[in-house]
């Protein structure tokens, strides 16, 4: 997924859409918005980032899961099988992005890239709702996908690369 920080207005529509689409209980969220301000009035810079699980290529949450509940599904999506999860929180401790949480029902939950929608060829809910069209979802293995092209033509960065997880959310600047 690529996220255009030049266009995001930090409205959190992606957060509400995720909550309604995925029935995320009140008080929890699979995605969130970070506002960055730097400088001194009036020489300022600001951007917003819509963040969620990075679906890391080298996912520590999957590695440390003692039951295999956390796993990498087809297409590189990191998922949690609720009925295999014992709720030990090891994966939560292992995620540098604090992308996971314990669902009130006891299992661990997080962004699934809306697998139920992708399976049907739809975009994730957050992508489809964003009023500024600043979220782009697609296949990075396909060099002609929207995301691959965006990454080719624009400058981007990932979050906390030094944590070594090979995150798969790309922030376009």
């Amino acid at each position, binding site marked *: 997924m690529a996220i255009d920080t030049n266009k995001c207005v930090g409205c959190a529509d992606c957060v509400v859409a995720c909550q309604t689409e995925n029935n995320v209980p009140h*008080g929890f969220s699979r995605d969130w918005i970070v506002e960055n301000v730097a400088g001194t009035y009036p020489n300022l810079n600001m951007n917003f980032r819509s963040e969620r699980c990075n679906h890391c290529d080298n996912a520590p949450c999957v590695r440390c899961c003692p039951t*295999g509940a956390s796993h990498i599904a087809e297409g590189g999506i990191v998922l949690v099988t609720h009925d295999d999860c*014992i709720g*030990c929180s090891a994966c939560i401790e292992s995620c*540098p*992005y*604090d992308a996971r*949480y314990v669902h009130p029902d006891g299992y661990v939950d997080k962004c699934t890239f809306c697998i139920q929608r992708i399976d049907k060829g739809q975009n994730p809910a957050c992508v489809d709702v964003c009023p500024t069209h600043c979220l782009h979802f697609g296949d990075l293995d396909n060099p002609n996908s929207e995301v691959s092209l965006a990454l080719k033509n624009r400058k981007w960065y990932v*979050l906390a690369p030094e944590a070594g997880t090979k995150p798969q959310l790309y922030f376009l600047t």
Partner: protein
Amino acid sequence: MKEELIVSGRNIPGIDPYLNMWHWQIALYLFLGGLAAGVIFFAAYFVVRGKEKEMPAAVKWASIIAPAALVIGLGALFWDLNHKLYFWKLYTTIRFTSPMSWGAWTLMLITPLSMVWVASYMKEMFPKWDWKLGFLNSFEKWVIKNRIPFAWIMMILSIILGVYTGILLSAFNARPLWNTSILGPLFLVSGFSTGLAATMWISRDEHERKVLSRLDLIFIAVELFLIIHLFMGFMAGTAVKLEAFKLFLGGPFTVSFWVFVVLLGLILPGILEILELSGYRVPRWVPAFLILFGGLMFRFVMVEAGQITRFLY
């Protein structure tokens, strides 16, 4: 000025404003695991060295602590699980990349074995003891016959357990404070030291206590050395490591770490042990208690502080 803040109101229990998923249960679990590892290691060690008679407390009496500690520790771990009814899923698979998984399996092995260990000494400790059931008595005989290989297995498992208590934390890249290779040996050494302390407390034999005390002094020295090393590592590390270091240098954990863990939990009992060894009378529970207390504090501090350290925001 630089401002970086979550503006979508995220306030998830245990995650925001900073991670706080693991609580006293995990610290206690790690402490008891280390303690049991220490106790078992030395019991087995003295058996292998043929010092069974010289070191009665270490080999027999103290080893009662191990199964108790392990069961309580497991209880604490279970308590901390959020999806308790699925606990058994731990034992449907072995995940080699997951310290939690091999920790669970190690515990699965070492807990019953430690019970067997204690059981095999029941008759020596309580001469009137009788297993009543025939097959138990013959099993006991078999264990006693194979005590040396059994002790070897216990030694190896206890080292794995001791290291595991540290690696459980150090495997987490995401928490700069934990993510250091020193944590494994450090927890091992600290666990062994607490095991020795507990044994010393129980031991009524002057000679045995001296032996244990000398050993313990070595462990305390190694532990101090490792702690210094740990901090040197942080000081030489990246910004996030420095942040982690700051928690202990002027940050919220300064007192609990330097005063309770280092001063009261290591240096003071060390001094007391030296005094005792050079002939001064020190109530024997004092250094032992201090070491146990320091060990527990150490795990509390590491579990709590580690969760605060992070890469982002």
